[in-house]
């Protein structure tokens, strides 16, 4: 049986599907009997989901960049490709 510390050490690999079949079973087995680690994994997933939906910092100067890139493309295009 894994200790809680060992479970936490494997938690990212568990969440990313990087564990071997045997290791995954060990983690699942531990989670079945350990409410603290179940909470930990649940909150790790919540943390992941939170990072995912955090609003992006607005990109500055999008309009100017878009204009420059469009112009660049048209310039190249006239050069023939």
């Amino acid at each position, binding site marked *: 049986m894994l*200790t*809680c*510390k*060992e479970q*936490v*050490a494997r*938690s*990212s*690999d568990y969440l*990313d599907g*990087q564990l071997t079949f045997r290791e995954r079973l060990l983690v699942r087995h531990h989670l079945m009997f350990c409410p*603290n*680690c179940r*909470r*930990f994994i649940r*909150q*790790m997933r*919540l*943390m*992941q*989901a*939170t*990072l*995912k*939906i*955090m*609003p*992006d*910092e607005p*990109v500055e100067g*999008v*309009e100017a*960049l*878009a*204009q420059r*890139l*469009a*112009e*660049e*493309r*048209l310039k*190249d*295009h006239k050069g023939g*490709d």
Partner: protein
Amino acid sequence: MAAADDTHLLERLLKGEQRAYKELVTTYQSAMRAVAYAIVGQRHADEVVQDAWLSVVRNLARFEGRSSLKTWLLTITANAAKGRYKQNRREVLLDDLPSPHGTIGDDRFSPDDGHWAVAPYAWHQDTPEALLTEDELRKCLEHTLLSLSELQSSVLVLRERQGLELEEICNLLTLSLSNVRVLLHRARLKVFATVEHFEETGEC
């Protein structure tokens, strides 16, 4: 973005439609910046992204759709970054900087049996939306992300926010899978510690 969307966007880009470029920049600039940030660091990331955009435009007609548009853009960014700054960053690869709220470290576990000595605190919210209604927490998370090393932060952003597979991250940043796993795990534990601290104390 699905392949069909890529194709449609690409047609508009090839015609030089400014709105299509705006869409492109808005959708992909953050991911490109994360790649540049990981390779050349904060000081040069913006320049590299600019270079990458120009390179994207010049090579647009050659994009064949063998990879997704996103993968293609990120590969160009990684190449722009690597080409421009060849100095060695390997020595700081796994550098672990202190984070504002620490991490889930050894001190959380009993040295005798490896069980939790200080159990994970139960958060008050159980959805990401509910967590983020606290503007303070969002600021706090941003602060923690900025405290991570450039590589740790980029790997975390590329995985959690951009949804890249670990293998893609390895290829883009020329890192081994085991290094990416270590970087990601350490970054996550620090962010976890920040949310936990906030949930427990209501303060950043």
